[in-house]
């Protein structure tokens, strides 16, 4: 079929490229064209999808906040962990809910549970920024969360009104507002 693949692999610079990857990161376009062998070797086919960032700018160093400097270079599956004595990983974070450690993420490219997003928030932020078009969700909100967000919004308004009412020494309104806030707090607990 398409025999005129004139693009040459960016890695080995010899074989024709067959895998074309591109990604927008921080407003810049990252592109890499690889031949089959190199794409396998580089793990571009790996569904983690951010192998590109790793490939082009050494994601290991970018993300790794812990002091394991040498390990950043040994990206790739099963790399790193020379095993010599006490590894500094022990000082690295562990998810209190599922026991997942930062080093596990390096191995698999997956997280352990939903709480990991909180545990590793700091380390994930730059990675997410690289991978996605935006940094915050603007799509669907589950109904339960939407109700909660609405209640939070209403609560904030009521509290502002209460402060105003107290300032204005309008105690009748303030009492009514206080009652409404208590009522809402009760709903929150449910």
């Amino acid at each position, binding site marked *: *079929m*398409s*025999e*005129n*693949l004139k*693009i040459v692999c960016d890695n080995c610079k010899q074989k024709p490229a067959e895998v*074309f*990857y*591109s*990604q*927008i990161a921080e407003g810049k*376009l990252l*592109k890499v064209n690889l031949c089959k062998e190199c*794409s396998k070797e580089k793990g571009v*086919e790996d*569904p*983690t*999808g*951010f192998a590109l960032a790793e490939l082009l700018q050494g994601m290991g160093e970018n993300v790794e906040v812990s002091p394991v400097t040498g390990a950043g270079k040994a990206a790739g599956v099963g790399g790193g962990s020379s095993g010599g004595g006490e590894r500094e990983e022990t000082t690295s974070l562990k998810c209190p*809910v*599922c026991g*997942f450690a930062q080093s*596990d993420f390096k191995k*698999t*490219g*997956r*997280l*352990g*549970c*939903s*709480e990991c*997003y*909180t545990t590793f928030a700091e380390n*994930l932020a730059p*990675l*997410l920024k690289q*991978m*996605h*078009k*935006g*940094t*915050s*969700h*603007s*799509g*669907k*909100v*589950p*109904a*339960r*969360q939407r109700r909660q*967000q609405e209640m939070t919004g209403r609560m904030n308004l009521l509290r502002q009104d209460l402060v105003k009412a107290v300032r204005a020494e309008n105690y009748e309104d303030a009492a009514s507002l206080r009652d409404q806030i208590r009522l809402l707090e009760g709903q929150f607990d449910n």
Partner: protein
Amino acid sequence: MKFSGIINGGASGWSQNDGPQHDIVISSRVRLARNIQKFPFPGWAKKADRVATLEKTKPAVEALPEMDDAFSENLQDLNVLEKQVLVERHLISREHAAKGVGSAVVMNRQQTLSIMLNEEDHLRMQAIRSGFRLRDAFALLDKADSALEKALDFAYDPRLGYLTACPTNVGTGMRASAMLHLPALVLKEEINKVIQAVNKIGLAVRGLYGEGTEAMGNLFQISNQTTLGQKEEDIIGNLSKVVEKIISHERNAREVLLEQKPATLFDQIGRAYGILTNAHSMTGKEALNLLSLIRLGVDLGFFPTECLQAVDELCTEVQQAHLQKAGAQKLGAEERDLLRADVVREKLKRCPSPDLAKVKARRAANENGSGESAADDAGK
């Protein structure tokens, strides 16, 4: 519903060639990734955890109105061949087919909604429709998702959206894709330009079975790469716009080929027909590549339109597991190639030899009639 219902049901719901622009857009798919709060993701969970998650998710999924009389199985209860059939129909992923205890699949009768349990995420829900119907597929999926969130506590963060095992899916957890048949762009050697342009705007182009697979049969999957920062509707809207552009490029390329290189085109399609109707041994790749040319031939008027269905059915039937099923016994690669050729020859009996005169007549009629508007379209 039993497995036999799926395999023997003839053309599966989504593959009936009735969708809009089906001559170019084979199928439209949307998937959503969802997880249960605080339960370890399947890849990190111990077997007991996975089973525990499944006990929550499976009943909830089976209770969906859409899943009335659904096909619902634990992965360990399906044999290798059955799993492979589901992969070939794009109803489960290759990764999911490798799973056993603690994973399951639930799909509706029409095979338009398929939910993988404990794949990479606790739920991977997919809607698939024939033709160019991304919005329909999303609507079906969104409805199922809204029903499920009443029963299941989905992991969601106000800032990051839906939380997924892989950070590349966080946010909407959505991947929308269209499977495109682009033989003319391949023949005209313009496909790489198109792929590069698509990549440039942040969309991914993949082969028949998704990530890391080869483009066979001139089939290409186009999908969004990123999931955070855009609304679902916008992701689908952007993808649709790109797909529309590619469709018009492909149509244009078909016209140009017919105009500039009719002899080459007649030759290629005629040869494909000759081999398919006379060969006695054929690999899956060869079959798909040649069937692609017949499909193009149908669109250009070489074959009657009824042939399209035969070709589309064959595209599924010539695949390994479907052949094995039809053969009812385990076959070696050589035996499969023989059987495949038999199946193809038999089915293409419905499809007469390519008719050049008809194509020429149709083109002559077109030139007298709407020649100018076609030129306008091309100029856009």
